[in-house]
């Protein structure tokens, strides 16, 4: 395994490269069209309205799988940029509750790390369209962290 990605992540974290540079290195993030906005210390992920993510053509509505994939990818990027993870964490499990229809428009997501353990991170993700207080989906996931960053607590 090379250190190219690790170096890129470090450059993004240091502010030498825009966060989007990391997203551009991940094929699936590009496939969905994910963007990331930094608001001070906060990271907001965006899934821009894109017809390739449509699930229900009649409504039209976003594909639940695309929204879930967006949330999972957001959590991975969040761990890399904000939590000092140098390697792409592996998803152990991912649980999604669909609360409202995902309309065919821009979708936003924010992540919160509930617990960062030695090997496992528990992350909660919330996605919304109109206002943050009305999420369309909420998710929680466990990620396996690399040995390299195993934190000593």
């Amino acid at each position, binding site marked *: 395994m090379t250190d190219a990605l690790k170096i890129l992540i470090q450059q993004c974290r240091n502010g030498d490269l825009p966060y989007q540079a990391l997203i551009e290195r991940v094929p699936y993030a590009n496939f969905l069209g994910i963007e990331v906005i930094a608001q001070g210390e906060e990271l907001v992920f965006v899934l821009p309205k894109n017809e390739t993510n449509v*699930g229900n053509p009649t409504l039209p*509505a976003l594909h639940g*799988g695309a929204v879930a994939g967006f949330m999972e990818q957001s959590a*991975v990027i969040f761990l890399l940029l904000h939590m000092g993870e140098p390697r792409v964490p592996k998803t152990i499990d991912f649980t999604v509750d*669909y609360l409202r229809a995902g309309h065919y428009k821009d979708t936003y997501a924010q992540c919160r790390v509930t617990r960062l353990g030695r090997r496992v991170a528990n992350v909660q993700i919330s996605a919304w369209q109109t206002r943050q207080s009305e999420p369309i989906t909420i998710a929680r996931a466990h990620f396996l962290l690399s040995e390299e960053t195993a934190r000593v607590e």
Partner: protein
Amino acid sequence: MNTQHTNISRLEICRRFVASVRHSTELKLDVLDANESSVKVFMPYQDAIVGNPETQVLHGGAIFALMDQSGGLAGACAIYPEFEITPTIDMRVDHIRAPEIGYGVLCQAECYRLTQHVVFVRMNVFEERNPKNLVATGVATYMRMKLPGANKVVS
């Protein structure tokens, strides 16, 4: 309104439905088999859906989307010959192992309980070349919407 499709097989309905779902066509999902309450769906390997550029392993999100779609199809099979729109209520996926790099995955989804309002589904994902190797397992529930005209999607 006639919402039945007795003259169209379950497999054909599943294929027509998937063809109408843009995101699933982007994932190149292929319905291989459809039975009374279960389906088998194949998702080929694509460079575009790699989640880790260091290992080239498929993204968990793409596997999640495959499972979500397959679960909905399993529900459609159980509801057949009616056709309904069934949005996902919730779904949990456990990622057991990373699938073999360069090869696709197979999802088997089964509707194990159908009630008046809710579809209960379990799904397993296996490696393309080694179908005994479990990649992911999941469980989901879907809502039966019973919207008039839903069958237009597949007719």
